[in-house]
């Protein structure tokens, strides 16, 4: 008998050569469904404990959008990870932040990044921002059966719309509902406290640096009251992840700049823990 693997014929089979779809996830779900979260089933009636990522804030500024996430992942009362990244570049002009079950969320982000690049390569054009937001919604929808068993993923998507030259924020619910947000948005366990801070700190027409500072401060407030959200860790030099998207594309704020913002927020809270002003 030969040793050739029967599952992977050397010749490209018809799934590769068929015309039509420029969606990577559609191709994978037809060809290798076990590689997708939606292709897996948990035994019913069970639930498992897995690390959870928590708070993501996003806000518009004049000429773009800022998204920031804390770095903590928790599993019950245990800190599972202190320096996890939860905000990722989805493509050149958008970012995605994740809250929920970390393993599945990271897998969805990887799949989403390939999905956008795959479309761009096959079609020779960049997908519209609305189209990208809807693709993410359909992926969340595909995860519904896992979400029913506790493995939820709730992302926030933010990007720069090249047609209208403005930043946009899209929020999602666990069933894949996609909503456009005006101004600011927060998601995850600390989102209630972050939203309170954003309501007071955000206003239209912020500058980029002001927006970064507001994002850092909103996360500080979330960490102040939510044990699952990690505050800035001065001892370990762990700062939130902050991404900025504007007309020149998506980029991450370098850690030395972030350190400045964090130090200012922390200094302003000395003897003023609520940040009254």
């Amino acid at each position: 008998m030969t040793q050739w693997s029967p599952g992977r014929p050397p010749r490209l089979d018809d799934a590769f050569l068929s015309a039509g779809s420029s969606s990577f996830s559609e191709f994978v779900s037809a060809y290798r469904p076990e590689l997708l979260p939606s292709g897996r089933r948990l035994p019913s009636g069970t639930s498992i404990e897995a690390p959870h990522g928590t708070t993501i804030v996003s806000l518009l500024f004049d000429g773009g959008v800022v998204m920031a996430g804390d770095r903590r992942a928790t599993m019950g009362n245990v800190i599972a990870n202190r320096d996890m990244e939860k905000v990722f570049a989805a493509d050149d002009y958008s970012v995605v932040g994740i809250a929920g079950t970390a393993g599945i969320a990271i897998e969805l982000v990887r799949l989403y990044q390939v999905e956008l690049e795959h479309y761009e390569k096959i079609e020779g054009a960049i997908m519209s921002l609305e189209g990208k937001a809807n693709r993410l919604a359909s992926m969340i929808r595909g995860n519904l059966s896992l979400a029913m068993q506790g493995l939820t993923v709730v992302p926030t998507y933010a990007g720069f719309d090249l047609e209208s030259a403005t930043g946009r924020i899209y929020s999602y619910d666990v069933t894949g509902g996609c909503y456009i947000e005006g101004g600011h948005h927060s998601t995850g366990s600390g989102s209630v406290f972050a939203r309170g801070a954003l309501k007071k700190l955000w206003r239209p027409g912020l500058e980029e640096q002001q927006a970064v500072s507001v994002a850092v401060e909103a996360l500080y407030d979330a960490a102040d009251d939510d044990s699952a959200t990690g505050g800035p860790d001065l001892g370990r030099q762990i700062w939130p992840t902050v991404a900025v998207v504007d007309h020149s594309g998506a980029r991450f704020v370098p850690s030395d700049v972030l350190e400045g913002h964090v130090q200012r927020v922390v200094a302003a809270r000395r003897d003023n823990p609520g940040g009254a002003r």
Partner: protein
Amino acid sequence: MSMPFYVPPEQVMKDRADFARKGIARGRSVIVVGYDRGIAFVAENPSRALHKVSEIYDRIAFAAVGRYNEFESLRVAGIRYADLRGYSYDRTDVTARALANTYAQTLGAVFTQESKPFEIEIVVAEVGVDSDTDQIFRLTYDGSVADEQGFVAMGGASEAAEERLGTGWRPGMTLAEVLRLAVDVLGAGENGERRALDEGQLEVAVLDRDRPRRSFRRIVGPLLTRLLVEAPAAGGATAGPGSTETVPGEDGSASPADGPGSPAPPS
């Protein structure tokens, strides 16, 4: 009841090969040529929308001549193959060699089993860390693979074009120099007559060694015009200052240094 005539297999293969070669020779040529900072793809192609050159993956590109529908389906298959492999393994595990082997199996199977062979010829190229590690694979209609050094010409009158490339090309040429050489070769006619090709008739793209992650860039508009004009006569010193050294994002559409990628952003 009619009996089919016996046709010897040699004759069948020869007929199929002749058929495919004729189809390929009717099309316009594509040249793939290495330069000091990457690999350039130059195609005579008046269409802005139907490409002969395409990105496959971070360091890998695809060029083809022949029937559009046939190479387009292989191009899409290559992108699916590369993205699936990169997704289930890692981005660094996607190689031109593996893709070329898969294409070769597919072309070979179609050549012997289907009613009609593909009338196409393709190149799969991967840019390496230096020009010694660049790889250019040329695949023909029957599934044979050749590992080419430095340059390839495909399509109509490709032998003559390769001969001219062989005399004009040397390692370490700049992008402007190889573009000029490629345009000269594409414009050379049968009997020494020359056609002038302008930017509108050319499809030019590069795999740029110095770009992080996705190295494929199309060269269009003012940048292409400048590169075609500024090339000095062959044998001259290095080309113009700065401008040919790196290829910026095409024509104003700036892209950030950090594209989408592995889920870990730089912190």
